């Protein structure tokens, strides 16, 4: 029952794709079946694997930095009410600006290559993670904290038994959002200033008008992003239901 709706949706998407293909033809699109075929060819091509691992390494580093820095910014801001009030509009403004605009600045600072990609992924992920972490701490029920005080809990006990369980669900939501944005950031980074990685391949395929390649890469990225998001979403919902 739980799997029925997503399954229908996936089938629906492939049907729409196939119909679209029948309408526009080979000039602009490939059928789902032939895309799946070219993706499996791509995945078995040894020259393709370094690009995947390049993107994976850049993304993993960028995402890790985003989580650590985001929490380091967000958690204290949640605890200190006034600082949080000062910082929140600044964070929201940073969240809403098109960070692509800052790409030349990052390139000038880090040069073309791995560090620029990592930095670009990280700056996309940091802000949402810190906003969610700040709200997570801010919204901890003050009664719980006072109860802890009355019970003379040690700081360690307080952290383990109250702070973490209360704040974790929102923090996980923030990490889920940050995951998607850091991935987008990493790919954008590869599209502009890189000679390797999936984003670079996507740009290359676009300039060569290689529709097959574009579709195979897009399918790979969408499946990866949607798959991880589904896992994080399940974790997220379980944590929220328990709280």
């Amino acid at each position: 029952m739980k799997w029925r709706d997503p399954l229908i949706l996936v089938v629906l998407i492939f049907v729409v794709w196939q119909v679209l293909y029948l309408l526009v033809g080979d000039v602009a699109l490939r059928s789902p079946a032939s895309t799946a075929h070219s993706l499996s060819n791509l995945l078995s091509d040894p020259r393709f694997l370094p690009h995947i691992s390049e993107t994976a390494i850049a993304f993993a580093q960028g995402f890790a930095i985003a989580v650590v820095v985001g929490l380091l910014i967000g958690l204290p801001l949640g605890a200190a009410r006034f600082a949080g009030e000062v910082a929140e509009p600044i964070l929201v403004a940073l969240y809403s600006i098109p960070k692509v605009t800052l790409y030349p600045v990052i390139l000038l600072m880090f040069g073309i290559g791995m560090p620029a990609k990592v930095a670009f992924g990280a700056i996309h992920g940091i802000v949402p993670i810190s906003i969610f972490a700040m709200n997570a701490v801010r919204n901890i029920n003050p009664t719980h904290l006072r109860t802890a005080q009355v019970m003379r809990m040690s700081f360690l006990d307080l952290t383990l038994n109250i702070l973490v369980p209360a704040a974790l669900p929102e923090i996980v939501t923030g990490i889920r959002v940050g995951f998607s944005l850091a991935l987008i950031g990493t790919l954008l980074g590869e599209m502009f200033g890189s000679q390797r990685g999936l984003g670079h391949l996507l740009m290359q395929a676009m300039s060569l008008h290689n529709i097959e390649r574009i579709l195979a890469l897009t399918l790979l990225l969408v499946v990866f992003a949607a798959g991880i998001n589904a896992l994080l979403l399940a974790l997220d919902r379980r944590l929220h239901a328990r709280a």
Partner: protein
Amino acid sequence: MPNALIVRIAIVVIAVGLLELLCRLGVIPNFTMIPPSAMAQSLWKILASGKFSHDIAATLVNVGIAIVAAMAAGVAAGTALQGWPAARRTLDPLFATYYAVPMYAFYPLLIVIFGLGDFPQVAIGFLLAVMAVIINTLNGLDRVPAVLLKTARVHRLGPLAAAWRVRLPYAAPYVFTGFKLAVAYSFIGVIGAEFITSSRGIGYEISFAYNNFDNPVMYAMILFILLLVITVNMSLHVWEKRLLSRRRRA
């Protein structure tokens, strides 16, 4: 909270001042970043000369089209889905994963299909923006009290009239939140797409200046985008607050 506001302004002023100092002292070399005052000066000159008026207009028109289309389509789709629970349940996983998918990955495909005109950029802006409107419209419509719906039935309003006169007005603040996000996402989508590949627009001019090591122009236009987007978002935020406080008084 004027107190928080003062501290906030102070922080921004100090940050900009620090950047200015670091650039002037040469800690940050000039080929990496020019001082903020030089950015502002260069921006003033560019705006006064009207050199990029075409690009600015092109970007704003594309963003505008994406916003309007996303608002119209989003409210229509949200209203329709609210009246069709089976479809909504099926599409629910799509809503949940939508923003996890790197939308720019579709840009090459859109360029192949539609060519290198304005359409692919508008489409990316639209695609990013429309889901925020749909989700917030649904959220608002879910909160309409049953008594209002009953009143609509008593007055024998048809489904369209009920949506237009009762349900959407009630959901307006939530829909407005969706619009606000749509504005931010449209800017992100269109300008990002211009960066990847385009033949005109602010994003195009920035990457052109970058490739020619033209830092004064590049930083001036980056400053322009940041100021523009932040001003638009802040104004919408203030407007939203005013709308909400009026509703609370009523």
